């Protein structure tokens, strides 16, 4: 079973003459444990693809299946609980880490667990373990402002992994980092994909960061124009 299945996914913004096709007929699958990059220039439609898979942007046409469950088929399936699915099946990593500034590192990870109804003491223990595994055991009580860019992004990764999601979606996760920290993050993501058996889909425009990806999709003008396997 694939972690992500996308079949003829199309997203059109606007109607009639002003309609803009952001993504057209995207079809691919990602297996658990796979690290996949979507590479393309700015405005190519890669973020739209990510948000459609991430249950944020409703696809206009096509089908999206996450961890075997169809979530969209010519639009969201009726009665589907998108928040619950995002909470349970998906993890998000952002360009600017998006840590909550008034929560400490451990609380930033705990919040994802508590939102998924894990009791507080258990959530704290699990969050601390996760951060420790990412070499942030000494930073548990620090606020995001006291963390370096690389450390903050690792906390964000820990938060994305907290609920052991089947799919992790990363939007330009290395854009705000220097080359060394960016490479460290990519290495970490690859390691986590294998260890956690999660499919990791990374949107990036940075060609330097695509080493180590299992597959790379090139997106241009809303269409997947090429696929490369490593």
């Amino acid at each position, binding site marked *: 079973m694939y972690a992500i299945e996308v079949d003829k996914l199309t997203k059109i913004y606007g109607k009639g003459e002003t309609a803009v096709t952001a993504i057209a007929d995207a079809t691919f699958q990602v297996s658990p444990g796979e690290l996949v990059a979507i590479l393309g220039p700015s405005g190519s439609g890669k973020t739209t693809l990510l948000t459609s898979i991430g249950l*944020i942007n409703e696809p206009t046409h096509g089908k999206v299946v996450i961890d075997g469950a169809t979530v969209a088929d010519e639009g969201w399936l009726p009665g589907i609980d998108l928040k619950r*699915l*995002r909470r349970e099946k998906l993890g998000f990593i952002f360009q600017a880490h998006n840590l909550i500034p*008034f*929560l400490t590192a451990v609380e930033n990870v705990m919040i*994802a667990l508590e*939102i998924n109804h894990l009791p507080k003491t258990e959530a704290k223990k699990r969050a601390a373990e996760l951060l420790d595994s990412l070499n942030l055991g000494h930073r548990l009580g620090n606020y995001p402002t006291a963390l370096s860019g690389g450390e903050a992004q690792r906390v964000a990764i820990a938060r994305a992994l907290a609920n052991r999601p089947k799919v992790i979606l990363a939007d330009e996760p290395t854009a705000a980092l220097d080359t060394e920290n960016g490479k460290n993050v990519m290495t970490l993501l690859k390691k986590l994909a294998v260890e956690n058996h999660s499919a990791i889909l990374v949107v990036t425009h940075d060609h330097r960061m695509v080493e180590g990806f299992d597959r790379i999709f090139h997106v241009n003008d809303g269409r997947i124009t090429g696929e490369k396997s490593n």
Partner: protein
Amino acid sequence: MNLAIRDIRYHRGRFILTSIGLGLLLGVVMSMGGIYRGLFADALAVLEFTKADIWVVQQDTNGPFAENSRIPEDIKYRIKAVPGVAEASPLSFQTIQIERLGKPFRFFLIGYDLNGFGGPPLIVAGRNIRQKRYEMVVAKAMKMEIGEKIHLGLHDYTVVGITGKVVSSGGDPAAYVSLADAQDIQFKKDNDAIRNDRERIGANLAGVQSLSPAQAKFLKQNIAGITESTHTVNTVVARLAPGADIKAVQERIRRWNHFRPISVEEQTKILTKGMIEKARMQLGLFRIILLVISAVIISLIIYTSTLDKIKVIATLKLIGSQNRVIIGMILQQSLLMGAIAYGIGYALILLTYENFPRRIVLESFDLQALFVIVMAICMISSFVGIRKALKVEPAEALGG
């Protein structure tokens, strides 16, 4: 995890400053309420301390507080003789403003019959007036010392006692002297004025050809006696015997044609509905305006605080947070800010109300009602922020 508390803990400086600002505003609202109640208490103070059932004043007046009322002192004997009246006592009131320690010194002088009632309700220092002349009991608010002398009219008066918070309907602190002293202060002319008056009466009578010199002398003495008399009072207060019918007593006095017997209820109405009505309405309106301003400020604070958290809210939504988590964060912060600001305002007013120039009466009902109103304002104000938060799209968490 309580996000509201975490946010407040992180931004505590801003939160405390905002709460202090709002607390000061609520302190002003509380003081307005206190002054509003104080107006009532002041207006009714003399009325309550006198503990009279009927106030007999000059006919066709609302005296002695709302209008001038002058009646002869000896009417007290006639009133005392009315069936149902247990006691009657004459009272004299006047507002005096003199210079003391280089500053204007204003107070309300009450003259009372030492053998009657209507004197100082409570002596907190010194003693009550014992001598018929030249002794005085003053309210604590006048800040006078026992033994201090004060010159009023033609004589000096010595402070022998201090009473509590007795004020006039205008809020001026009250002082007590014997009725005879009060009458002297109010009506007695100095020797030059008396001589002038007598000369004028004599000259006028001398022009009357039909009077013999003996008749003119006799008339002059009588007219001077009347014009120099100080036996006038502003009211005679009466207490009824147990079981007496107040309506019957009032009717009997009213039939004399020269007096108006006012019951306590009527006097209360005159004082509260007539004399302080406008001030009361003004304060009430000002209080409402301040509450509206508070509501607008709270709404703005909550709204701008929500705008600051748009990315946080979008991120929470993106990671699957339920709306109640976000609503709870905004609502709890708003309520907490309101509660803390209320506490600051309350502490402020509690520490300062004794120093206000006018009486502040803090009634627990008013304070509780204000707390409920503040909480309601906070709740309603937070809806503005909540509305904004619920409109935030998870996609706003993406991008730089």
